[in-house]
């Protein structure tokens, strides 16, 4: 066995101490009829060959495209010091700090994470981490039900569709009610959450709402009127949950400033690679009065018997290992190493670096908007955005596929991601960050201009490339440009 220490003599010695001849005797308690069929798996693979295999698989992915894809996971610069810290075995091979005296590193790092995030979101209580933005949002919505004793939560349709699906799964399981808040359909505010509709839904005295959930920026990249939404929620006795993107909080008003009771969000942007979906960092924070409702671990500062400053997991009476079926959540394993990644990343960039990252994304997005407009591609909405926006593209799915062949990952086809939102047919969601280069933008504008020009020039044949592409779609080699 690859990492095992035992020589045949070691095994013999252990068996002899047990008075046994074969290790099989230790499995005599498995009844005959329950014994396993043999494992039909490949033989062990030496490390050298394993590395070849993995390198081969990794090479089948394409990560060299000019990418404008965000939609809840973002590319950001990560200074090499971040991963070098994360590769220290003292961090990644430890477990939950059950013995605080020999876990002060992890405990202080969690305390610092809580402190850093508290600054970003403007709320005082930050959990040690949740699975991802979607799970954190679901926990936030469940918190509003526990705290108010009500069972109905209103969620904007501008919240990430994956988060809304996860909310549905969790709420359906718990037997709680979930309702959409529609989007404004017309006018300059179109695409943002319809606050008039929210007000109407909050006005039902028979069925009061526990919570209201909006995202800032919204899934469509738009900036919502969070303070107004929070006021409406509070006037109806509901709690307000803000779903946030942490890098944006360097420049956008934080949840604490507009009256949010709970903030949830995806922390991946804080220096964590996209890695096809995880492990990510679920951010969950709340005001101090809600501290006993928040699920997940909390670390506090205390002292040891000598009066020395120290850190420890605290308020554990909320948690499953103490409260079992009465716990605030079933969460146990969380995302501590990702919280550390976020903290190290924030320490590397500092407040100015973080602000530069957020502002550069906004600047690149402005350049992108202008470059696309110059080739006749306009935004789908008109209200303010930070660094992500939807564009109007006829035959969006086909154009997206054709651009992929030309080496451009043209964001997200919204009609596929949100099939139940008819207003999004013929739109792509695109984003820019500090990683987006001027060359990327120029390439995107040139190629989309060319593709749309080709389509306009051969309008009866727009479906022709589709057949060709679906055949090519199976191949990992997509573009040669």
């Amino acid at each position, binding site marked *: 066995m690859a990492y095992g220490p035992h020589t045949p003599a070691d095994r013999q010695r252990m068996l002899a101490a047990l008075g046994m001849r074969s290790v099989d005797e230790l499995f005599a308690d498995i009844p005959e009829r329950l014994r396993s069929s043999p*494992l039909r798996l*490949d033989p062990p693979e030496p490390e050298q060959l394993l590395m070849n295999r993995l390198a081969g698989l990794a090479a089948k992915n394409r990560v060299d495209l000019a990418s404008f894809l965000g939609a809840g996971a973002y590319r950001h610069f990560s200074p090499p010091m971040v991963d070098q810290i994360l590769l*220290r075995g003292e961090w990644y091979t430890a477990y939950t700090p059950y013995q605080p005296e020999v876990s002060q590193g992890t405990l202080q790092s969690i305390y610092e994470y809580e402190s850093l995030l508290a600054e*970003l979101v403007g709320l005082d209580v930050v959990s040690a981490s949740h699975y991802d933005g979607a799970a954190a949002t679901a926990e936030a919505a469940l918190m509003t039900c526990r705290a108010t004793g009500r069972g109905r939560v209103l969620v904007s349709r501008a919240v990430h569709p994956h988060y809304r699906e996860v909310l549905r799964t969790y709420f359906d399981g718990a037997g709680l009610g979930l309702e959409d808040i529609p989007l404004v359909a017309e006018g300059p505010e179109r695409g943002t959450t319809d606050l008039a509709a929210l007000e109407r839904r909050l006005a039902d005295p028979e069925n009061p709402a526990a919570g209201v959930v909006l995202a800032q920026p919204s899934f469509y990249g738009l900036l919502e009127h969070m303070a107004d939404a929070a006021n409406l929620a509070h006037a109806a006795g509901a709690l307000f949950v803000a779903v946030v993107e942490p890098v944006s909080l360097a420049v956008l008003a934080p949840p604490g400033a507009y009256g949010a009771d709970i903030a949830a969000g995806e922390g991946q942007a804080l220096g964590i690679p996209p890695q096809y979906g995880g492990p990510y960092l679920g951010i969950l924070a709340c005001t101090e009065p809600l501290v006993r409702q928040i699920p997940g671990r909390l670390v506090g500062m205390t002292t040891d*018997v000598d009066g020395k400053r120290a850190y420890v997991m*605290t308020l554990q009476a909320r948690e499953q290992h103490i409260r079992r079926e009465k716990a605030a959540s079933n969460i146990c394993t969380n995302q501590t190493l990702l919280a550390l990644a976020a903290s190290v990343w924030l320490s590397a960039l500092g407040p100015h670096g973080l602000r530069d990252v957020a502002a550069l994304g906004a600047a690149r997005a402005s350049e992108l908007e202008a470059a696309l407009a110059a080739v006749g591609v306009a935004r789908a909405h008109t209200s303010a955005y930070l660094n992500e926006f939807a564009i109007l593209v006829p035959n969006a799915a086909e154009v997206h596929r054709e651009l992929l062949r030309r080496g451009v990952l043209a964001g997200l086809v919204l009609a596929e991601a949100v099939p139940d939102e008819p207003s999004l047919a013929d739109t792509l969601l695109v984003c820019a960050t500090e990683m987006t280069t001027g060359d990327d933008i120029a390439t995107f504008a040139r190629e989309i201009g060319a593709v749309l020009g080709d389509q306009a020039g051969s309008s009866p044949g727009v479906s022709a490339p589709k057949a060709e592409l679906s055949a090519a779609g199976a191949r990992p080699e*997509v573009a040669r440009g």
Partner: protein
Amino acid sequence: MSASGPRLQPTLFELSKPGRGSGKVPHPPHDALDRLPAEHRRDTPPALPEVNEPEAVRHWVNLSQMNHAVDTGFYPLGSCTMKWNPKVNEWAARQPGFAQLHPLAPDAVAQGTLQLLWELEQILIEISGMRAVTLQPAAGAHGELTGILMVREYHRSRGDANRTDVLVPDSAHGTNPATATMAGLRTISIKAAPNGRTDLEAFRTALGPSTAAVMITNPSTMGLFESEVGELIDAVHAAGALAYMDGANLNAILGRFKPGEAGFDVMHINTHKTFSTPHGGGGPGAGPVAVGETLEPFLPAPRVLREPDGSFRLERAGERPTSIGRMRSFVGSTGVLVRAYAYLRTHGASGLAEITDDAVLAANYLKQRLADSGAYDIPFPGPCKHEFIASATSIKRKTGVRTLDIAKRLLDHGFHAPTVYFPLTVDEAMLIEPTETESIETLDAFADALIAIAAEAETEPEVVKTAPHTAPVRRLDEAGAARNPNLRWRPAAGAWTPCPD
């Protein structure tokens, strides 16, 4: 909430000085944010620490050195399977082709990762003896919730919606009953038999038309194989309920017992336990769920599918209406799953079987050494699986030294403590899991330390009761931490200071 006491390592906030740290990213144009309406802008900047790279790196390195970890020493934390975390797996997950792949990248540019995930599913299907696997859950407890939500949906789909009870042994992890609650179901706790094993008759009595599922950890949290699990599963099915296996202790049964073959309907697997993905100081993990035929239609979306031409794709939104839906964003904690895949390929069929054999042999050897010493109570004699329970009940009666004290004294010997006071059903419990990657020399040294501490409890009980003495800090004021929670540093308010460069 002021900062207290002398400290081992200042917080980042205390290291901060305006004007420190710069040069990581380019500056944006001055008008970059002018187009943002004032309503949306932040008034006061976050008061994040300003530290230069050397200070920051030393801070994190100094902190790391206060941790006990698998890379620094023995970590026999029962039920957590703190085995070696192979270094090649860290290399694997960091390959740019894996690490930089966007989770919404079109299938055509994600074929390598999709193939890896699909192959990993096949390997887990073979190990579990089940029919299908979802890799979506982010942790064991998340997998439990996934499994129980599928069970609930199964009953609903049959018009059998009144099944509201989940039967759970009282020795189970707290996540089992907490999961039932999250799924809107009621937990019924079943007492273990005096021999530490599941009380089949108690389960038979509790089973009925309102039972949705039975959740069994096998081997149990006592480290014992549930020999009557076949009869129990039969009884569960006869009552119209489904059988869930908590796979926390899968390390004990690889190649010896396949839950699917034995009749379990659903189980979760903790990759961070059995398949060595690093525990990360508390996470991340991954909790793939394996199911039999009955539950396959209800698996979360999206699944990874293999097309007839050998290419791979994700299920599209709404493609399988019977699904319970999504459990998280995107496809799963792929970075964790890459490590698990590498581990499984490294070991192959024979290596996995050896893992279990060596893990069980090591646990029995250690158990025997403690039993022979007579220093500790061994509540359940006879062969165990990958972990076992020792108890300090007699020591406490004689000397007043408790399991907690012994755990703390072990830290002075350079060992992490076992899991203590769990399961809740055993007095002064220590749950000890050595894993297969610890040498016989380490096992002996650990047994010697435990035996020495038991002797010390008689000769110098105060030394044990006030341990640890050599750790970075001594015992903590946990009550004070809970009474006056200090959950964040409070820096002076942020201000728009000039950029260092």
